């Protein structure tokens, strides 16, 4: 798969169809995002490791693609994405951060092992060009752990989990859709500066709620958490509720409006078939 992807990207660059290819580069045994502008550098291009390409630069509070589009308006850029990367792009596009029309989205599928490791229900992008689609594991089985608990058991469970929190903000920083200029998680009303662990459940409540209709289930927050707090348990419960209640799934269509920020009735959305 990698050889074909490199060849495809090299073609795009040499035929000047795109100004740059944004993807992952492996160097000295480590993988990081990189903006390829020369075809000869594409030997270093890699895919398939769980390194996200969409995350928010801080303190700029925007992602690399949006920075690129600001600096080089109208220039086309190719982006190599997995399912979750694409969903992340769509979510920030809905919020006016990037122009999807100026992107050449090149998608590749994750394999079943990756999907299991990520608890990912949709391990492939819509713009799938490379690789075979596999079925992701179901969320139901995953969230059963807390769904089956009583309210009091859940409280005890989360108190124990959140008491481990060191307020590193890694869950927020690594989130591809956390783009707010002013973050409620930094608000002293929820979590006074210097207080550890944060009060149950204020600090986490803010993050969970604010992402309830934009979480794309990439698992980046969980991967970034040094304390191994299973943040995705709650996120998936909320995604399910948003689907059932508001007939909405995040990361599907860049033209959709986020339901909790739009004044459309859930019923109207259903009638429109979106």
């Amino acid at each position: 798969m990698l050889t074909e992807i490199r060849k495809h990207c090299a073609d795009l660059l040499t035929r000047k169809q795109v100004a740059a290819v944004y993807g992952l580069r492996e160097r000295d045994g480590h993988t990081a995002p990189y903006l390829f502008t020369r075809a000869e550098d594409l030997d270093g291009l890699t895919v398939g490791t769980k390194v996200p390409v969409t995350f928010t630069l801080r303190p700029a509070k925007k992602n690399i693609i949006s920075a690129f589009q600001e600096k080089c308006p109208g220039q086309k850029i190719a982006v190599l994405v997995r399912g979750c990367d694409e969903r992340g792009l769509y979510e920030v596009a809905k919020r006016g951060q990037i122009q999807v029309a100026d992107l050449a989205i090149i998608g590749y599928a994750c394999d079943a092992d990756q999907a299991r490791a990520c608890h990912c229900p949709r391990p492939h992008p819509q713009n799938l060009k490379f690789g075979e689609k596999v079925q992701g594991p179901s969320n139901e089985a995953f969230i059963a752990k807390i769904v089956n608990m009583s309210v009091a058991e859940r409280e005890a469970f989360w108190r124990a989990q959140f008491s481990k929190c060191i307020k590193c903000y890694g869950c927020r920083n690594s989130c591809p859709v956390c783009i707010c200029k002013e973050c409620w998680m930094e608000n002293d009303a929820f979590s006074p500066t210097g207080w550890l662990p944060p009060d149950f459940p204020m600090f986490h409540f803010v993050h969970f709620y604010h992402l309830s209709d934009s979480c794309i289930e990439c698992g980046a927050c969980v991967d970034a958490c040094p304390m191994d707090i299973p943040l995705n348990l709650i996120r998936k419960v909320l995604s399910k509720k948003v689907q059932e209640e508001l007939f909405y799934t995040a990361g599907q269509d860049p033209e959709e409006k986020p339901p909790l920020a739009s004044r459309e009735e859930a019923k109207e959305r259903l009638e429109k078939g979106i």
Partner: protein
Amino acid sequence: MNYENVLTTCPYCGAGCNFYLQIMDGELVGVLPCKDHPVSQGKLCIKGWTANEFVTSPERLTKPLIKRDGKFVEASWDEALDAVAAKFKATRENHGPDALAVLASAKITNEENYALMKFTRAVLGTNNIDHCARL
């Protein structure tokens, strides 16, 4: 536009977490954890996550200062290092190597601390080395 990531070690403590500094057109724009680094495994604490911020802080000391007539004045690195070396030498000659002591830092890497230990014992000739994390 240019965008690349440079792997480096966190400057804040001796744990040795690694992360990428994100460089966009020559400008430092952020920190990105390194997922496949054996020490930090893609996780950082809040200091590491914000390690890009002090680089451009106006409060950062960017030039050596030497105290002259009770006031700090800017000096070149050569002047500063010469001043330190001269005082080290003078103290060692007049009072012996055990009149010197070195305080290592938790904010430098393991390897730098190792070099400091070697410097203290082999160059200065004393065992007086300690670190600030002894609470």
